[in-house]
């Protein structure tokens, strides 16, 4: 399942790239409770407590940055599982300078399998869209609130 979006941020591509390259900053944009247990180079792991409809639980995840082109594009692959579910996600952000800011075109290719996918099938797309949009909106806010956004 793919969801995508685009937003403008009043920060330069370098700052945006640096923000997205820092997994702790990126994941802090999640509304759901989470931990980042390990960051080693481009690989990281942690937990997130989330759910679809009434099916909620803690997922363990492992991730890595699979493509990093400074100031232009960043791709992250994440695989997680928990409570009889598994999620595989490829998150990408393509950055384009737009005046003094940046246009961020993001895409999330998410595969969810397990009881959540079975039970809450009709709610998955809207849930993923909602969570992804919220994450990038919070990222935008934090980037614009940062003292140096060049």
């Amino acid at each position, binding site marked *: 399942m793919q969801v995508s979006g685009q937003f403008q941020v009043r920060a330069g591509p370098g700052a945006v790239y640096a923000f997205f390259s820092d997994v702790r900053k990126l994941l802090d944009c999640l509304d759901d409770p989470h931990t980042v247990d390990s960051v080693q180079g481009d690989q990281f792991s942690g937990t997130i407590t989330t759910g679809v409809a009434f099916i909620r*639980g803690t997922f*363990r995840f492992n991730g890595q940055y699979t493509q990093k082109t400074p100031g232009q594009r960043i791709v992250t692959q994440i695989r997680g*599982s*928990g*409570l*009889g*579910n*598994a999620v*595989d996600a490829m998150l990408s952000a393509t950055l384009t300078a737009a005046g003094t800011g940046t246009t961020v075109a993001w895409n999330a290719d998410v*595969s*969810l*399998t*397990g*009881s959540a*996918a*079975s*039970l809450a*099938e009709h709610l998955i797309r809207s849930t993923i869209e909602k969570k992804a949009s919220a994450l990038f909106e919070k990222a935008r806010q934090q980037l614009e609130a940062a003292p140096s956004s060049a």
Partner: protein
Amino acid sequence: MSIHGGIGQSLPRKEDARFIRGKGNYVDDIQLAGMLYLDFVRSPYAHAKITAIHSEEALKIPGVLAVITGKDLDAAKLAWMPTLMSDTQMVLPVDTVKFQGQEVAGVVAENRYAAADGAAAVQVDYDPLPVVTDPIKALQPDSPLVRPEKEKKSNHIWHWETGDRPGTDALLAKSDVVVHQDLYIPRINVSSIETCGCVATFDTMGRLTMYMTTQAPHAIRTVFALVSGLPEQSIRVISPDIGGGFGGKVPVYPGYVVAIVAALKTGHPVKWVETRMNNLMSSSFARDYHISADIGATKDGKLTALKVKTIADHGYADAAANPSKFPAGLFHIITGSYPFQKAFVEVDGVYTNKPPGGIAYRCSFRVTEAVFTIERLVDEIARKVGMDPADFRMKNFIPPEAFPYKSALGWTYDSGNYGGALKLAQQMIDYAGLRKEQAEKRKKGELMGIGISSFTEIVGAGPSAQFDILGLKMFDSAEIRIHPTGKVMARFGTKNQGQGHETTYAQILATELGIPAENISVEEGDTDTAPYGLGTYASRSTPTSGAAAAVAARRIRAKAQKIAAHLLEVSPDDLEWKDYKFQVKGVPEKSKTMADVAFAAYTNPAPGVEPGLEAIDYYDPPNMTYPFGSYICVVDIDKGTGQVHVRRFVAVDDCGTIINPMIVDGQIHGGLNMGLAPALYEQITYDEEGNIRGNSFLDYLVPTAVESPHWETGKTTTPSPHHPFGAKGVGESATVGAPAAIVNAIVDALSPYGVTHIDIPVYPWKVWQILHDHGVT
């Protein structure tokens, strides 16, 4: 003169006294000292490599004692087990999962909550593999392989065919009218009220007792002995009260095997009981047949030939509960109630990333699929010929005088009067009046449909020459002991799951022995005490164990006659069995009851006659029995929503001699509901990633009392000529016959718009779409 509780009486069910008081004893009611609980880690993926299983966190949870993986079982050569169809399936996977919801590791704990927490805490690392859930795609050369370890590098399992292909092709080519129809009969789940479960316990001498939800305890004991290497006498299988089986409790599930291993490993009894979601995700499915059929007729409406091709989706293992020689079950009863000159049937079994199975779901090995196909096709060709579907059937039925009748595919039908059943159904529902009403409603644009299904079943496996399960011949048994006080204990190789055996077997013995049914106790399900049998499924209990009861009782009566003659000081030849006692011929006042004889059998036996009064019979039927019926359904369709309302449903059944009319009606009512279910509500589907859609009752729509129409039942009686008292099976007839009647009614209502078929379940949106496309809504 009648005997209390004899054959033909609507005796209240003896077992209901405990059920309605909540005194039933089901597997989950069993509590043993020190008992532990088993739960499973299940795969979220439909196909994936297991790269690691981390159980450390689970073992830290208070109460969690052990985590059992496929590698643990593999060390004991228990990671795989045989299926009923000579394939293999996993107990627990060593390195690859094949369907979503598959058991990956067992967690044993002091209580079921800790076991569930432990299962949630086990971390499994997977590498996802490509998934195939569509059997048509699975047959394509570039499809992912579901069973790459097999020598045959293909998802194709087997090809089976029967009949005369060239003869059928030639006759179809010559037929004036030919109808082709593709049908899909979706995957469904039996959804018994009680899910599967067990308690495994070893005694201090290493003897295993297995309390489990099984329809076939003796066969299961033998399978356990063969797989585990335990001596068979050291295994006791007890099948206590069962809350519905419907075929779903015939297979051996991984939970049973892992519970035994867990009991062995921990030294404690271990209980495993599925949740509803577990059951819907991973227990054996039914149906999942993709059918393509051609039927031919002359222009004046005489059927000629039938040709059927089927793709059978078996999931990742061919674990169908079929007799060994019939890979597609008894699908070739598909010629139904009609004397085709030629017929040809072929079926191809296919692996996909779905749970294994292919159980019958309240039908005798794929008869539902066969009946649905033939009764849909007959309706369509009647329409194409321009005949009323009832008249068309009447014109084509195998006539009563043709029995025993050998079908175009080789079955010998024992008895039948198909026209009689349909005629009664037409009378009960006022068929002519309904057709007039329909014509008037059509003028007003209202959607009303009338559907018929005139089915023939094949039940009672079986003649042992043809029928076996894993080589075990499909006979069945009865053992009768008459105690000195004239009371009876009877034990059987079958296993009641709600059918009413405690009552109906007692009624057979009451009639045969002249002992009131209230004085007869019936036991089943304990392999230490019951005679060996193949169990209850496929409507086989009355045709086999019921027959064995009669034969054993008659054997007792022959011995009893000698004792009665001794008591009456006459020759045995001077006695006759009349009015349920031994009477001196011509002197009816000189008589002895069976109770008199029973007391004498232990206190004053006749010279040369051994003491005691008991007998056992292992009955190998000479043929199957062929119950039949005609169902007529009336539906009204809401043009705005596409909602189908079943206004009336008349079911006329003929199961030969009826033992208990009330129980037969109960069987019919339950079966009709289970026929309504797939017609309008139930199906399990999968998305392209193998996610099951329908793993809870939120999505898997089991009809409730609200959805169930008022069922009207009728009976004709055409006894089986080879059964000791003329009975046939009946438990599954209604499930088999109902779906076609309902769908035929819906198609009849929509036929003015050119509709010739709608795949089941006929959801309102499907009907609405048709109406919308025709500008009706």
